[in-house]
């Protein structure tokens, strides 16, 4: 059982009641602070180090072979809380050899950065690991239209990311291994 300890507050001494020694201590503290190293980051010249799990501007990425990863499943559009994402789905032409099994790809992919709240749900929900919130943290524009990132802009911002699965390539290999018709 917890024991209750009654602490009696000591009456303040005279010097304590004048508060002057304490004020002097405080003055010492603030004065010594003046000579400590500064923490300010001179922003436009110095850039902060962006940690790996930073949630910056959402971007679309390509796989190491330069192929579009997004298949326009529209889950990000669905999950997006502020409804910032707008996808126009489209299909991959049948004769595109490197993406035979994918069939589907976005015709247009727009993220309205005036609406985006950087929550990262889109990255979390993406089954193809095609959308990432990367290290871009500053986006600005003069018009509302400029703040809507279209597909080309998103791929430009996103670049290439390593792929752990090559899901669709596995399918292609399985097919060429010959268990199909």
């Amino acid at each position: 059982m917890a024991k209750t300890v009654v602490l009696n507050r000591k009456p303040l001494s005279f010097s304590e009641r004048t508060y002057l020694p304490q004020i002097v201590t405080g003055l010492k503290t603030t004065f010594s602070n003046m000579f400590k190293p500064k923490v300010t980051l001179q922003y436009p010249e110095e850039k902060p180090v962006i940690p790996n799990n930073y949630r910056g501007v959402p971007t679309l990425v390509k796989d190491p072979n330069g192929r579009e990863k997004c298949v326009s499943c529209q889950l990000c559009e669905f999950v997006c809380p502020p409804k910032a994402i707008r996808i126009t789905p489209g299909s991959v032409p049948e004769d595109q050899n490197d993406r035979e099994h994918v069939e589907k790809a976005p015709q247009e992919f727009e993220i309205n950065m005036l609406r985006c709240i950087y929550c990262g749900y889109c990255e979390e929900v993406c089954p193809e690991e095609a959308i990432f919130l990367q290290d871009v943290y500053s986006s600005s524009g003069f018009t509302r239209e400029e703040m809507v990132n279209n597909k080309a802009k998103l791929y430009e911002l996103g670049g290439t990311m390593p792929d752990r699965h090559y899901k669709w390539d596995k399918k292609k290999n399985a097919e060429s291994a010959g268990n199909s018709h």
Partner: protein
Amino acid sequence: MISPEKEEFVVITLNGTEVEVPNGINAVEAAALHGKEVPHYCYHPKLSIAGNCRMCLVEMGTPMRDRATGEPILEDNGGPKIGWVPKPVIGCATNVSPGMHIRTESDLVNECREGIMEFLLVNHPLDCPICDQAGECRLQEFATDYGRGYSRYIERKNVKPKRTRLGPRVTLDDERCILCSRCIRFSQEVAKDDVLGFVDRGSFSTLTCFPGKELANNYSLNTVDICPVGALTSTDFRFKMRVWFLKESKSICSESSSGCNTLVSSREGVIQRITPRRNDLVNDTWMTDSGRELYKSVQSEDRIRRPSADGSDLPLEDAISRAFETLKEKKLGLVANCRSTLEEQFLTQRLAELTDAKVFIRGHFGEDDGILLSADRTPNLRGALVAGLTNQYPAEHLNELNQSISDGEIDALLVIGEDLLESGITQENLDKISLVFMGTTQNSSSSSANVVLPGLSVFEKSGSFINRSFLLQCFDQAIPGPAGLLSECKILSKLVNLFSNETKVLSELHDVWQAMSSMEDSVLSGIEFSEIKKGAVQLDGSKWKHLSFVEKEALHHKPMDLITA
């Protein structure tokens, strides 16, 4: 499903509780009636039983009886001893009988479902991100509800062709097929166009069309609807929109007088697809392919989007008063329409009575396929009869009107939707009269009209139709109409107000219905608006028995002379 013949009820024991179900229905339906879901793929209430997916396995048993005496054998606690069938049985092919015991939630059943799911998923591709069925896929639903949650399969999956064209409107993705054969049975039994079958064996089994044939009948898209997975996809809807974005509204197909119940799926005011809605009195769970394409007219090029008078646009209010100016104190004729809703036809009749106008109405006819596409290609011809617009069966042409214009008996005409040149009116006569046109699409009437009042399509307004069996069904607005436009109902009631010099507003549907149901001597008298909102209402059509309706006997429809005979 519950067939109407089997009204007799039996008592069975479902998961330990005694429940009453209609005699002869199967275990899946019996469980569904009491809120227990038995997952199934190949079973479809409107098709024959195939029993090949094995997903609906349940435990079944009957009370044991002594072979010699026929006395029931009792447990120690006095209850009857149940002889459980040692292995589970498929629910879809097990019809209930008195005293039967069914378990849908036992460990054995759960284990069976888990095993079946695992087998079904062995060769199923991880396609959900690009699969149009995602969101309404039974495989997804049951894998989360009854599956084991992870895969033990490490071998290479089967790869099958992905974009097989089965017909002009249906594309097959072989990999996703779970061989339930619903589509095959549908083609054989409902569409009566036997073109589909399985070829090859084991995990190489593939759905295909018979050589030299294709799935081209007018019901082919129903196979897409009943496909429990994403194997059969609509070529029109393929990759267009994910189903979870779609807002579904109850509607009625306006293609023909069969009155198919439909669901109109739209996103942000744009219709994406039309699918059938189950109604066992009208269309079961089917509809025609041609009916599914009607939504394209909403966005068509020749849609009338702005009111105009003498070729110049003007606000709708002004256009309505211009129409009144054009028509008043003239020898007025009125061309009504069998495609208008019942409410609009009623208001048209009101207008005709007020202005002493002569009413003309024409029919549109085509081939009857004996299923859901009837010979009468208007959804509401019987509505025109009920509203009192005509006593005769409408003919294809309006020769009488042509004659009246030639004779000078009519010098002003209000046309609702119809194309006058096509209806047999000569161009010379058209030029003679002042013409007000109200409709959704441009045609010869609109181009020679003095005032054009744009209307709304069937998807943009609410109303009701009376189908070939005199079933009164209402439909809801699915999408908003073009900005600034009003429904025909509102325009007509404004015209009625202008002609009657009153300010009585009949613009809302329930106001119109109040007026309609308070009419004496009508088959509609006493029918409440709320009543038709709930479901179809059967009207008494015997008053028009003498008319020669063109519809043949078809799904859930018997011509009236056959009923009485």
